[in-house]
């Protein structure tokens, strides 16, 4: 009787948690309610976790282990989440996603060991859960390392890589089939562990050849994969909260991946398998060939004058702004110019930086008023009527090759029409290329001047010079 009541409470809690996830996710996808949406999801998660403790299966020593595990895990998660810089968000999300992936894989393996006589549907779920979870784990790990620049952001390709991948994939398929057919026993369990290890290798190999700039898309995809893996473990446990939450993430994550790829004018397939094709060598070649054409360098003092006496200035922030952490300085400069009667606006490219919304977050951190931020479509026609376009650490998102050069890997990506401004001042440290690894004609234009140096330092010096002007 008491058992019964407890199960009913647990069932009900899972139901409520599922509903909260749905509503939370819905609210998360609209700016006005996003934060509340996340908090609803948190509430749902809390309810689900607490309810799980009521399950009769959970008792004794293991209960203690669970509590200890949760405490440790929470600590591991919260510390970096609180301290990480905004620029490092993507890798952090990758790290957490990897955690989820490995959890799903381990749960699947445990399920297989604990059940006797695993049905075919369950067997399939377990195999897929292990495979997807493990791929998501190592894939996320590689993405993390690339973004942290512990390993090169460049596509890492080696000969016959596709052959290896195919081999591993075939092996996984075979192992999976055997596991499902055998249903049970120590041999099958060993095979599942082998499958797990092979999947770890597969995840690594799949993500290594993808360029660092594509990592956000990869992470979104792996995120969706982890959701699917979670749903599969729920299938085996007969736990609908897992199924629903996992499926929600799997579906929305897939859509999100496509939306993100679309913002970069890429297809998801192109992102994942692009390095195997034509782009990698082409990009490398283009990057090598730079530095030959003439450029116009400018001093801080010379740059300050047109800024100070301009009527209209558009600031184009890019990844370099994030690297230099120059957002506060930029705001100071903008305030200063506005004080002098200059109309200052910010042009935000949808994929400027390393994650969507990167620039919004950064500038919001520096308290830049929201109505000064203009999305690409809204401001692109105004460059032609602008005196100075101040490009701060942006590169690919201003590259006219996307408009003109059909051979360019970024051809077709919508870009900011910076080159139409009367004059362009570009702040970066060198002539090195951006994340797409291709040269930018803009820097060689007649009306473009380069102000070399770290963005933060350059702007600080610009502020001084504008005050003096």
């Amino acid at each position, binding site marked *: 009787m008491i058992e019964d009541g407890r199960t009913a409470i647990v069932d009900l809690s899972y139901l409520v948690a599922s509903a909260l996830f749905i509503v939370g996710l819905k609210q998360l996808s609209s700016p006005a309610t996003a934060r509340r949406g996340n908090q609803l999801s948190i509430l749902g998660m809390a309810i689900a976790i607490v309810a799980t403790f009521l399950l009769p299966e959970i008792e004794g020593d293991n209960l203690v282990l669970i509590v200890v595990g949760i405490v440790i895990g929470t600590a591991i998660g919260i510390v970096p*989440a609180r301290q990480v810089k905004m620029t490092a968000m993507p890798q952090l999300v990758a790290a957490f996603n990897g955690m989820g992936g490995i959890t799903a894989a381990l749960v699947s393996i445990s399920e297989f060991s604990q059940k006797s006589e695993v049905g075919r549907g369950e067997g399939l779920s377990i195999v897929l859960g292990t495979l997807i979870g493990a791929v998501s784990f190592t894939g996320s790990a590689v993405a993390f390392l690339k973004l942290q620049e512990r390993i090169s952001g460049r596509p890492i390709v080696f000969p016959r890589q596709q052959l290896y991948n195919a081999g591993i994939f075939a092996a996984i398929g075979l192992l999976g089939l055997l596991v499902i057919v055998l249903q049970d026993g120590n041999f099958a369990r060993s095979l599942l562990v082998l499958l797990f290890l092979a999947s770890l290798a597969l995840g690594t190999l799949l993500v290594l050849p993808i360029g660092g700039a594509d990592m956000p898309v990869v992470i979104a995809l792996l995120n969706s994969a982890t959701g699917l893996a979670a749903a599969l473990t729920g299938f085996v446990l007969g736990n609908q909260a897992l199924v629903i*939450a996992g499926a929600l993430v799997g579906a929305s994550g897939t859509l999100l991946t496509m939306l993100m790829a679309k913002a970069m004018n890429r297809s998801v397939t192109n992102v994942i398998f692009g390095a195997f094709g034509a782009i990698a060598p082409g990009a490398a070649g283009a990057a090598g060939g730079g530095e030959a054409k003439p450029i116009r360098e400018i001093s801080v003092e010379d740059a300050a004058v047109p800024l100070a006496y301009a009527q209209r200035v558009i600031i184009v922030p890019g990844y370099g702004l994030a690297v230099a952490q120059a957002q506060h300085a930029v705001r100071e400069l903008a305030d200063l110019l506005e004080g002098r009667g200059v109309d200052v606006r910010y042009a935000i490219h949808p994929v400027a930086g390393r994650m969507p919304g990167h620039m919004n977050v950064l500038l919001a951190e520096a308290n830049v008023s929201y109505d000064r931020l203009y999305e690409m479509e809204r401001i692109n026609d105004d460059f032609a009527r602008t005196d100075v376009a101040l490009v701060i650490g942006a590169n690919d998102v201003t590259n006219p090759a996307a408009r003109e050069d059909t051979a360019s890997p970024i051809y077709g990506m919508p870009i900011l029409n910076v080159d139409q401004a009367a004059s362009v001042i570009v702040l970066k440290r060198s002539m090195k290329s951006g994340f797409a690894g291709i040269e930018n004609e803009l820097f060689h234009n007649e009306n473009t001047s380069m102000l070399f140096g770290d963005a933060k330092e350059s702007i600080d010096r610009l502020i001084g010079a504008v005050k003096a002007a």
Partner: protein
Amino acid sequence: MDQDILLGTYVFGLAIFLGLEVINRVPSTLHTPLMSGTNAIHGIVLIGAMIVLGSADTWWLQVLGFIAVVTGAANVAGGFMVTDRMLGMFKKRPAANAASDQGKGGQGR
């Protein structure tokens, strides 16, 4: 077809539809928080980890389960926290009331 599996399929399928539907018109600014928020939600697999650890009866299943609980909890706690932080920054937008907003950020569960 087993009734439970059939119903499970319905639940799964409906949730897939719902997942696709709900995201439909998300502005690109929200892509990152959305990614990170859904990332936290799939941390629900922690529940699975708790259940398998709860009924683990050999030391190595305990080890597996324990690791799973730790990583799952990290996924949940870290994911939600970082999402909340990110969205907190978005909230700051209206320039003037930065101070009051920081206060809010602290409150955020």
